[in-house]
């Protein structure tokens, strides 16, 4: 009984203290309301108090008495910084990058080789030789530029349309194509869809299909303040071989914008003006790059897939007992039903 009484006294005291707080902060807008002492019923904003007693130190904004909605259409859009215009000229001369002719030619060749690789692999999907592909048209310069600005050992967490970084860093043509075929030499041994490349040597973390999930992972590496560079590009091609983008955008508009703003085109014009590249060299390079890709392709198509035991590997660092059991079950089933499976496409298991 006594304990109950002391509890209620405590609670009464608490409520009273709360009331005082509440009446200090809020004024009832309708003074004719009842004498109840609760909060929320009628709340009006406090009149302007220039001493910011309610806010802690990190809120720096001033207090206003004007109620105004922030409308996106009234805000000036962020300007887009551009160095090279559509004619291949640098408008702001003081911002001319410090590239040698060799730097430029390497970057241009990487961009255009990627274009050729994209064209051939896209076609090969259409012909049913690989299952899926995604091109990089329109975005090549962001890949090459980013890679060129980084050190070779800087860890890159890419997404599925950033193959140019690998091209710049020296991923070989057959390495791209092997991964698209999912054969035994592929960087992920055929476990992922095409274009999901990765390389420890080139410090490029293996790509996953999910978007933006790699961004907070990359933040873990930066000890200074993170920088966001939003590179504005036009994705010229379809999203993938499963997409026909005419369903949701005007192809004519894409074509006309590409004619004017294509990054490879702009760089080429700049190089022509600079005198380190010309039409003859360009024609020869087009022929050479085609040949290189076709040769690599023919080679890769013949390579077998990894042994079927591969699909149980690398779930954990070591193969756990339950996986060993399941692998054994699968192998036994395949052995007894071997004519139901295209085993000739796969290397033999060592076990």
């Amino acid at each position, binding site marked *: 009984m006594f*304990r*109950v009484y002391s*509890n*209620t006294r405590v*609670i*009464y005291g608490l*409520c*009273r203290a709360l*009331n005082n707080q509440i009446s200090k902060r809020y004024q009832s807008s309708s003074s004719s309301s*009842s004498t*109840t*002492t*609760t909060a*929320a*019923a009628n709340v009006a904003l406090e009149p302007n108090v220039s001493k910011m007693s309610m806010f802690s130190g990190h809120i720096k904004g001033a207090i206003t008495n004007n109620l105004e909605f922030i409308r996106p259409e009234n805000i000036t859009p962020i300007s887009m910084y551009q160095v090279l215009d559509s004619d291949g000229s640098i408008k702001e001369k003081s911002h001319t990058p410090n590239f040698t002719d060799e730097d430029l030619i390497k970057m241009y060749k990487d961009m255009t080789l990627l274009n050729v690789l994209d064209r051939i692999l896209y076609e090969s999907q259409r012909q049913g030789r690989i299952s899926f592909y995604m091109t990089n048209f329109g975005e090549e310069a962001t890949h090459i530029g980013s890679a060129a600005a980084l050190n070779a050992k800087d*860890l890159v*967490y890419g997404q599925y349309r950033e193959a140019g970084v690998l091209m710049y860093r020296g991923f070989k043509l057959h390495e791209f194509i092997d991964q698209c075929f999912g054969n035994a030499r592929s*960087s*992920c*041994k055929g*476990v*992922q869809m095409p274009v*999901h490349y*990765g*390389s*420890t040597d080139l410090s490029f*973390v*293996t790509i*996953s299909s*999910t978007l933006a*999930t790699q*961004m*907070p*992972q*990359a*933040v*873990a*590496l930066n000890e200074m303040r993170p920088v966001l560079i939003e590179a504005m590009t036009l994705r010229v091609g379809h999203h993938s071989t499963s997409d026909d983008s005419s369903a949701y955008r005007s192809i004519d508009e894409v074509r006309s914008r590409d004619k004017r703003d294509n990054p490879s085109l702009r760089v080429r014009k700049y190089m022509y003006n600079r005198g380190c590249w010309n039409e003859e060299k360009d024609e020869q390079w087009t022929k050479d790059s085609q040949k290189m890709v076709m040769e690599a392709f023919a080679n890769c198509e013949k390579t077998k897939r990894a042994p079927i035991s*591969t699909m149980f*590997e*690398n*779930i*954990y*660092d070591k193969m*756990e*007992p*339950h996986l060993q059991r399941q692998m054994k079950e699968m192998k036994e089933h395949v052995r007894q039903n071997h004519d139901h499976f295209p085993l000739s496409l796969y290397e033999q298991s060592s076990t």
Partner: protein
Amino acid sequence: MNLPIHRLITTVSTCSSFFLRRRLAHFTFFKDKPDPSHGPTKEMNLCQTIQNALGITLGNDHTAIIFGEDVAFGGVFRCTADLRSKYGADRVFNTPLCEQGIVAFGIGAAVAGTTAIAEIQFADYIFPAYDQIVNEAAKYRYRSQNLFNCGRLTIRAPWGAVGHGALYHSQSPEAQFLHTPGIKVVIPRSAIQAKGLLLSCIKDDNPCIFFEPKILYRSAKEDVPLKEYTIPLSKAEIISEGSDVTLVSWGTQVHVIREVAQMAAKDNISCEVIDLRTILPWDIDTICQSVSKTGRLLISHEAPITGGVGAEIAATVSKECFLNLEAPIERVCGYDIHPIPHVFEPFYFPSKWRCLEVLKRMLNF
């Protein structure tokens, strides 16, 4: 709401006796003895033990970092108390309130070669990080075929019923992760177990989720060895041997089934009590060997029954031990409602009484 104060007081006074009763826990904590070969011990509760294990890690591994919401001042359960002042602000630091970011950051750090220990403030809040755990961490090694991995990531989270946690401070979501190959899920029942299992998770080269039964943070006091020791993962522990029925559980619920075993002994029922310890990958062999001997299996867990970890164990054991079974496999778990509705917790719980009732049914089958 216009409730006059004087009415509020009378309502509270009738409730207060209810509040008193609620403070009694639903289980009796069974203290274990330390391994004598582990040397000198100190009486510590679960939270102090976690702090001890984390301190050992920070001391031995210069790459180790601990991060999460509010860990800097010591954490809402004091598990990271004094670590920042001892090891530095670059080793123990706060993150924004963003579970997806906490786990993703941990993945990135682990990939780059750091021992990353992420804290999720309550297991109930782990779901914004679910995509990062399932689609990234779990698949990192597999999708790159071992070019990259985040094995050095450990995620810790307070777990399970606490008496008044209601829907968002009581969950035991281990089943949601059981279905994800590539990660390991570990749940200790006590302080001594927690230290060894946590250190194993940190050392294990796979991303691990370590759930800490929050109701045991203060109440689970044991003499915990001071030195560094590990307890193997994926190895269940037979706490007490028996011949009539196998009881399996993990975390807080282990103490409930230990008490059930004691109560059953009065009726001459001999129970074999097993703590599963690692939920994924789980120790199929120990459980099946036990059930082959006893012929009966009762699995108990706090989480709702449908699709819970008990379902996986029951299905596997019924296949492996079919001819040995004397009775159907039983599961005594939470009901298929959201765990745990605040004032209804005593009714939700897979209590010792419910377990005993089912046990007797199995013996009389």
